[in-house]
């Protein structure tokens, strides 16, 4: 179907390039803010993630962690081998030969790797 038929307003939009540029900037800042926003998790999800972490620690399973800190979202996959509850740190073997430790509080999601 012709674009004129399906998007007549997109075809006739009158926008100054400077306005488009500002809107793109605005959209990017919204996206950044969205990425920085802490997701809402219910108790059930928290319990599931706790269970997944314990299973991974017990059976040396590979887990994909989604992390959120000041620099935004990132992901990390590896086998968690130690949980320091006092310091709130998770030690992960990423397979690179050098273990990585992450703050448990920065974990916003976990998924089993299988």
């Amino acid at each position: 179907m012709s674009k004129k038929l399906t998007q007549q307003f997109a075809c006739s939009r009158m926008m100054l390039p400077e306005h488009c540029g500002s809107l793109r900037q605005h959209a990017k800042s919204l996206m950044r803010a969205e990425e920085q926003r802490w997701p809402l998790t219910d108790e059930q999800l928290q319990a599931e993630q706790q269970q997944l972490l314990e299973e991974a620690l017990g059976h040396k399973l590979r887990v994909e962690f989604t992390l959120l800190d000041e620099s935004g979202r990132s992901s990390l996959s590896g086998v968690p081998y130690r949980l320091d509850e006092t310091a709130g740190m998770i030690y992960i073997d990423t397979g690179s030969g050098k273990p990585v430790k992450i703050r448990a509080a920065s974990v916003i999601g976990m998924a089993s790797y299988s």
Partner: protein
Amino acid sequence: MNKKVIFLADMESFYASVETARNPSLRGKPVAVCGDPALRHGIILAASREAKALGVKTGQPAWEARRMCPWIVFVHPHMQLYIDYSLRITAIFEQFTDRVLPYSIDEQFLDLSGSFLPGGSPRAAALLLIEKIWSETGIRCRIGMGENPLQAKMACDCFAKKRADLFFELSSVNYAALTWPLPIGSLFGVGHRMVRNFQRIGVRTVGHLAALPREMLRRRWGICGEVLWLNAQGIDYSSVEPEQIQEQKGIGHTATLPRDYRKQQEIELVLLEMTEEVCQRTRRHQKVGATIHLYCRGADFDHPSGFSRQKKLPEATANALAIYPTILKIFRQHWDRKPLRAVGISLSGLTDYRQLRLPFSARDAREEALIRVADQVRERFGKTSLFRASSLRPGAQMLQRAGKIGGHDA
């Protein structure tokens, strides 16, 4: 299936309203925003409600407005300020829905289908929006509502603007009854030329058009005729997708010249400057274009002349010196040597710059490095920090236009 709830919010006399909001001493006075008459920008870009009540119209020459209303207050445009206000309004709309699509600087579509409607109904939500825009920006907003963007636009343009509550709703149920008696020029997409075309075949109202066979319109005016027929029926397949703003099909630049240009040398100089500007903007977006389009409008309003032609380039590029020979070729082939009032250049068929990195010669590499450095200098120190010496010659426009937005003061 639930009906869609689409709003078209239109800001009343936007530029003039922003000026009044910024300077409350103008409130209640007839205000008109207009450019500099000396540079042929002395036309009314926006007139306040008070000015409109005295007969002042958008597009009218400033001297004519002054004759109609000697105490009218003229204000120079501040384009960046208008963009900032438009963005503030977008941000307010985004508190209600994430599906907001600015259609122009003063019109925005909102899709509230499935969203929480404050006040419990679309009408209550619209009135709340109107109130919020007024209290936060000082601008009167009119809202048309429909089941698709076309109905919302028609509701706003043909009805909401005339109503005291600034809101009107069209739907599939009342669309025909309310819009079919309207003159054909009221239908979205029907311009002056199309009005003449329709009048020649006896179509004077929206209803007359709706009664014609769709096939006939398609045969006569192609897809445009078919879209107008659908508009007459209130049918529109458009959606309100905010990411549409990210798509850029072409980058172009059109300018009204400060006087009629008659000399070939002067016109070609402006074309070079505009090619440079379009290419710079294209490079800033990390794109290259495959088709160049040149538009020239004659100076004589009574005997319209000029042309609009496009040509595919041998290869996609954003290098002005690679494109300029094609521009010159089109210009010299089609210009009838009559004075020109406006020129425009655009580059379309855009692709990502990186996708095209084929092996190039040492000369190309040097040229590219030079362009990159020149762009960096302009980015850092401004458009006028580095330019062609030809821009100092009579007729050149680059220095006058630098720092302006849409040809008006930023």
